[in-house]
């Protein structure tokens, strides 16, 4: 590292000194913009390479107050337009700037059900913070007000204080709703529907609830206790949880309505079918989907080799393919599992990477080696069927494609070999075929995602709604939550209508 890693205490002290100079002063916009953007305290790269603990440690009280004071309270609040669930950002930030933290979290909770989660995993730099006036004036999105970190601070404070009050649940209506999957979309629907007094059963295929928040996102980025607590909140509200239940196989989707008497169903099963590249050598031993690699490590706890029965491949040199958050998670997990070298291979440039900027930064600090404008064209193996390397091609960027990002164009004759023993494919997910294969009449698009009415989240079958990645393709936690909110409102409206 070029400069020593600042400790949490140092950052706190610096903030305390600065805060003291501002105490009791009426701040102009100029004063506010002169406050330096507060760095997130984090474990030092050397320490965290060897543990699974959370990397970002969260703001101190002084830092949170100071960061909140940077907000200009813009009348037109451009940040709200950048938030998929339209949290009243200026209002909660103002409350924090004035030390009313409990009020801040109450404001956030009006729109977001999972603030501890979203404060950690939202791509704020392309949402609320991208629109922030402070960032615009200072000509860098990095200098925008750190809305996500403030959200996390407020949510953590509430959780740690134990002062969380259960959302009120209306009297029982006698109506029953099945929610399929237990990731972010489903958690949102379960809460919103239960609040109206309807009985809710959450069906999860795995042995533990939480969906991608549990099997996919690693502990070092999102501690599992936070997710467990969200699920426990639902259970305390009266939501029933059924694990090891695969809708489509254990019970058909339509049977939940026809045989089991549910009045409505929400499908939030996620994307859940890993994409591969369809290149030679992809089924060699040592090639894994990021889903498999992360599930073994996270959900099955394979990192705990002394206790876990689930094995994980022992790797020396790892290549991770892709540029999203899942690619960063996989690469950083490989570092923690003891790989000597971890290479991240992406066919565009860093500017096009969909990963959160913070995760890219963390991955680099942890020693992940980035290789841009490269992509394998085949995976090489030995006589035992084990991976020995990848033949790669170099790329250049051409005209923008449908996604608006510049299209990678391969450079003919640029082949070269990268020696690795493990390849982790993190290029996204397709929709899982199970529900559509076992539910006649359920409309899907060309990609196999469920087709829903945009305003209501209703599928082609009455009483069946859907949202999250099964509809959107691979997206984000906050978008899944937004979709869930919408579908829950439709379900509540449906169930409020007396049967004719």
């Amino acid at each position, binding site marked *: 590292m070029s400069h020593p890693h600042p400790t949490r205490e140092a950052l706190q002290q610096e903030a305390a000194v600065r805060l003291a100079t501002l105490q009791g002063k009426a701040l102009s916009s100029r004063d506010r913009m002169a406050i330096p953007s507060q760095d997130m305290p984090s474990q030092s790269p050397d320490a965290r390479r060897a543990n699974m603990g959370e990397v970002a440690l969260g703001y101190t009280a002084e830092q949170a107050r100071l960061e909140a004071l940077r907000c200009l309270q813009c009348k037109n609040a451009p940040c709200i337009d950048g938030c998929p669930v339209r949290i009243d950002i200026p209002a909660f930030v103002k409350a924090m700037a004035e030390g009313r933290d409990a009020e801040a979290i109450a404001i956030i909770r009006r729109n977001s059900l999972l603030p501890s989660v979203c404060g950690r995993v939202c791509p704020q730099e392309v949402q609320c913070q991208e629109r922030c006036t402070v960032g615009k004036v200072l000509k860098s999105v990095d200098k925008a007000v750190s809305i996500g970190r403030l959200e996390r601070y407020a949510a953590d404070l509430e959780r740690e204080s134990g002062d969380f009050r259960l959302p009120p649940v209306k009297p029982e209506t006698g109506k029953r709703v099945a929610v399929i999957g237990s990731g972010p979309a489903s958690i949102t629907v379960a809460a919103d529907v239960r609040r109206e007094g309807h009985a809710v059963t959450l069906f999860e295929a795995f042995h*533990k609830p939480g969906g991608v928040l549990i*099997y996919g996102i690693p502990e070092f980025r999102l501690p599992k206790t936070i997710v467990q607590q969200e699920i426990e909140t639902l259970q305390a509200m009266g939501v029933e949880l059924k694990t090891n239940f695969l809708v489509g196989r*254990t019970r058909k989707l339509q049977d939940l309505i026809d045989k089991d008497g549910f009045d409505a169903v929400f499908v939030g099963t996620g994307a859940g079918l890993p994409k591969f590249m369809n290149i030679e050598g992809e089924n060699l031993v040592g090639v894994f989907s990021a889903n498999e690699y992360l599930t073994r490590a996270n959900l099955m706890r394979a990192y705990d080799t002394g206790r876990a029965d689930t094995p994980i491949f022992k790797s020396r040199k790892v290549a991770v393919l892709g540029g999203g958050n899942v690619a960063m998670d996989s690469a950083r997990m490989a570092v923690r599992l003891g790989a000597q070298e971890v290479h991240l291979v992406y066919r565009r440039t860093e500017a096009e990477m969909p990963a959160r900027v913070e995760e890219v930064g963390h991955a680099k600090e942890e020693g992940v080696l980035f290789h841009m404008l490269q992509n394998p064209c085949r995976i090489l193996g030995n006589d035992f069927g084990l991976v020995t390397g990848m033949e790669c091609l170099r790329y250049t960027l051409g005209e923008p494609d449908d996604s608006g990002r510049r299209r990678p164009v391969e450079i003919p004759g640029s082949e070269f070999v990268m020696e690795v023993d493990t390849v982790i494919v993190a290029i996204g997910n397709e929709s899982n075929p199970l529900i559509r294969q076992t539910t006649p009449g359920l409309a899907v698009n060309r990609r196999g995602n469920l087709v829903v009415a945009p305003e209501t989240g209703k599928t082609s079958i009455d009483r069946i709604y859907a949202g999250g990645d099964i509809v959107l393709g691979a997206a984000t936690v906050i978008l899944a939550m937004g979709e869930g909110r919408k579908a829950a409102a439709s379900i509540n409206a449906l169930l409020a209508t007396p049967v004719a």
Partner: protein
Amino acid sequence: MHKILSKEQLSDDVFLLRVEAALIAEERQPGQFVIVQVDNQFGERIPLTIADADPREGSITLVFQTVGKTTHKLADKPVGDSIESILGPLGRPTHIERFGTVVAVGGGIGVAPLYPIVQGMKKAGNKLIVIMGARNKSLIILEDRMRALADELIVCTDDGSHGRKCLVTEPLKELCGRSPKPDLCVAIGPPIMMKFCAETTRPFALRTLVSLNTIMVDGTGMCGGCRVTVGGETKFVCVDGPEFDGHLVDFDNMMRRLRAYKTHEEAAHHQCHLDSDLSRLRKEGHS
């Protein structure tokens, strides 16, 4: 929690468990399997075939060979104890119709998943010729049950200790040469056996279904760890299978993939034995 209702040792290392699983018993069809996890904290998830089910009692029958950590733990469980997680039924059911004459080949433990398929095929009005094979007599399982269903039963062992002394491919080849030749072959057993069954039937263009048992984590399509190459394309055993056209499966690749964690597993199992030996010694007051 799934209570163990009964337990039978079918051979040296093959066990049968009847366990409570009402929903699975109700929905399961021939060809399907379950994912079993002994404990939810640190246990692994392994696929096991469903050998039988009783929807009225709400139970399923699992038959397994003790090969790894989880299967040993399962074998050690007494009647009345429980299995924490069972997910299923998984996989696409066997396509059952009246084909005419069906040859069903079961090798070793493969006889267990073959049994419900034979049941289904018989019920659909097919003539069933069953070939069962194992290394020796003690490893032949479910012979009486198969005999009760089959129109013709051929038992073979590698060492001749029971039935014919030959590999299952020998009677299979003879049947292919019969006129009229059989209409369908279903072969389930160790990968090497399925591979050679497929090679045996290929020259006769006898359609041959095989049921693959690969490494899985979730069993729902999410991880892709179970993928195999079938006709040059990648398929997931859990959602596209477990049954595939045996003439198109790349068995060599599949067998290599099955060995992916061998060293780790052996070490884990060795440790597990050390632990249980140690705890036995402790109980006996040796340390």
